[in-house]
């Protein structure tokens, strides 16, 4: 019997980009980077289910590592099933400026040389994780140009401060997210693994599948809803401050 169409032919979907930005400088060596590596594997094992539950959006995953320089793990955003994680190793400095420059390029329409969709893109999710101060002192200048990107402005941004909580370090991360509520201090490897999981999974789930709206509810596909859900889930995780 002939099917009603070729399998694989489907509806045109919106595109939701999830970006991990990972500090793999020397100080991340050991437990911290181990936790990050584990967390991303955990997230990727859950992602197919989330993708399966929605016809609204295709989820695309990207990862940027930065130490002395910033480098993309894949040269373009990957589908959930194609994104295979290779454990990162730690070495070098913390060139946040380089990471911001790469992000700026990435957060540009494809037709203009970037990686964001020309049609049907929804606000991306960016999760930055670091354990130290940038060794590139001009990071603020690079952040300024990143902030001009429309895709950056609308992105749901989280920053994880791993075992650091100096005012100076928090200032760097607060400036990145523009919202102290989405900067989290994480004290243990286990907490780090859980936090990455909660943020990446919850945000992807909420933003890839718009919920039914109720009376008086505001944004449904939006960042606020994801943020609320993440906040309620993080209540259960210990050794996190936010």
């Amino acid at each position: 019997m002939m099917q009603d169409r070729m399998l694989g032919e489907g509806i045109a979907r919106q595109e939701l980009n999830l970006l991990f930005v990972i500090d793999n400088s020397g100080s991340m060596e050991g437990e911290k980077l181990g936790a990050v590596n584990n967390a991303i594997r955990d997230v990727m094992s859950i992602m197919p289910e989330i993708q399966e539950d929605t016809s609204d959006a295709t989820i695309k995953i990207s990862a940027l590592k930065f130490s002395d320089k910033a480098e993309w793990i894949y040269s373009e955003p990957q589908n959930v099933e194609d994104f295979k994680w290779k454990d990162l190793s730690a070495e070098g400095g913390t060139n946040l400026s380089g990471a911001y420059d790469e992000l700026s390029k990435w957060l540009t329409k494809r037709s203009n040389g970037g990686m964001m969709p020309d049609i049907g893109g929804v606000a991306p999710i960016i999760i930055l994780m670091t354990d130290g101060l940038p060794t590139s002192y001009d990071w603020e200048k690079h952040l300024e140009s990143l902030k001009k990107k429309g895709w950056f402005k609308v992105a749901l941004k989280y920053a994880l401060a791993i075992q650091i909580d100096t005012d100076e370090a928090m200032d760097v991360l607060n400036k990145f997210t523009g919202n102290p509520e989405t900067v989290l201090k994480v004290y243990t490897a286990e907490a780090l693994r859980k936090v990455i999981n909660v943020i990446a999974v919850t945000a992807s789930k909420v933003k890839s599948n718009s919920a039914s709206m109720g009376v008086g509810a505001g944004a449904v596909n939006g960042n606020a809803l994801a943020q609320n859900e993440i906040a309620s889930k993080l209540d259960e995780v210990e050794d996190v401050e936010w």
Partner: protein
Amino acid sequence: MQFNKNDSITLDDEKLTIVEPLGEGGQGEVYLVEYQGNRYALKVYKDEVSSDFRYNLKNNIDKGSPSNSFLWPKLLIDFDNDRIGYLMDLRPKNFVSFVSYLTGKNAFASREVMLTWCINLCTAFKKLHEMGYSYQDLNDGSFFLDQTNGDLLICDNDNVTADKKNLGILGKMRYMAPEIVRNEMMPDVHSDRFSLGVILFMALCLGNPYEGERLKNYDIVDEKAEYELFGSNPVFVYHKTDKSNRPIRGYHTSVLKRWAYIPLYIKEAFHRTFVDGLTDRENGRTTEIEWLRLFMRYRDELIRCPHCGYEYIYGFGEKTLVSSCPSCNTPTKEVCILELGKHKIVLDLGKKITAAHLDKYSSEYNKTVATVIANKNNPSLWGIKLDLSDPVEIKDASGIQKTIAANGIIPIIRNLKIKFNENIIGEIK
């Protein structure tokens, strides 16, 4: 999650055991449970619900399901912490999600089966509306399908209320009627009808009726973009005169490909709902009974290409009959037509005659009363195998009459008249 594996809850001296969590949505959590020796799905609300919501759910449970297409709440449960939940049957394993159909992971066995599913969907909403209910939140996540036979299952029935009553749900963006998006009205039967049109369009065309060129106006699809595309200024992608929002080549590929082969009368029905229905919500939107007649007509005129197996329409409602297969160009095969009142049924192998063909008041659109079969010994000889309760009379062109038993076979011969009953006389052409 509020419960863990193996937790047990006592309900009126009966034990309910949590077997395992099944999933979590915005509103609640779902568990596999055991109760009175049977397995059920238990939905538990995360937050306290209003007394109106609880009363409505209880009332729906007492009134019972409109049809077996609904996975209807069966038993209301009040928990100690002021939360409520309800038991429902488990979704049988043969059903896959409509979402998985839309994304290309699953397909119907044939176009005929897809239309059977659409007919089941319209029948279910006809019954729901006839009971005085409105569903209020039709979206891609509510529906499931059996790919082999077109059976339908409708989930998430807890927002169903008496029409014109509202308990707070508005619906999902891209499925909601524009007047709901604009916050001018609350969901009711008429907004259900709009959303039903969207689901049917998606089933047939694999796309959203309002997503086209105008998507290019927005760098990012945000709340504002969605409000404009689906609320303040929706333009049907195949609007007859306003061509500003046509599907985008290379992006809305499925819609472009599939719309081309949909019968004109179905296109008209979509146009009515998505153009006239924007302003005339009560009379502009194609109703369930209208859809049922149209899908029946569509299914009746399907023909299968003998060369490539592609199913397409014979073309009774088109400007000219379809002379060749749209997929491989093989000329349309010679076939007999059964004219039965207003119905024209292309007697291709496997074609079904249903109870609704023989009785215009019947709503049994999928109850087969006869099927076109091939002779086992001589496959080029076809007949209509009956599955009726009474015999029928046939008369050939020379006037010879014969009685065929209720489970007998009528030979397919041109100019043969078939008298199903006093009122229903068909003729093979």
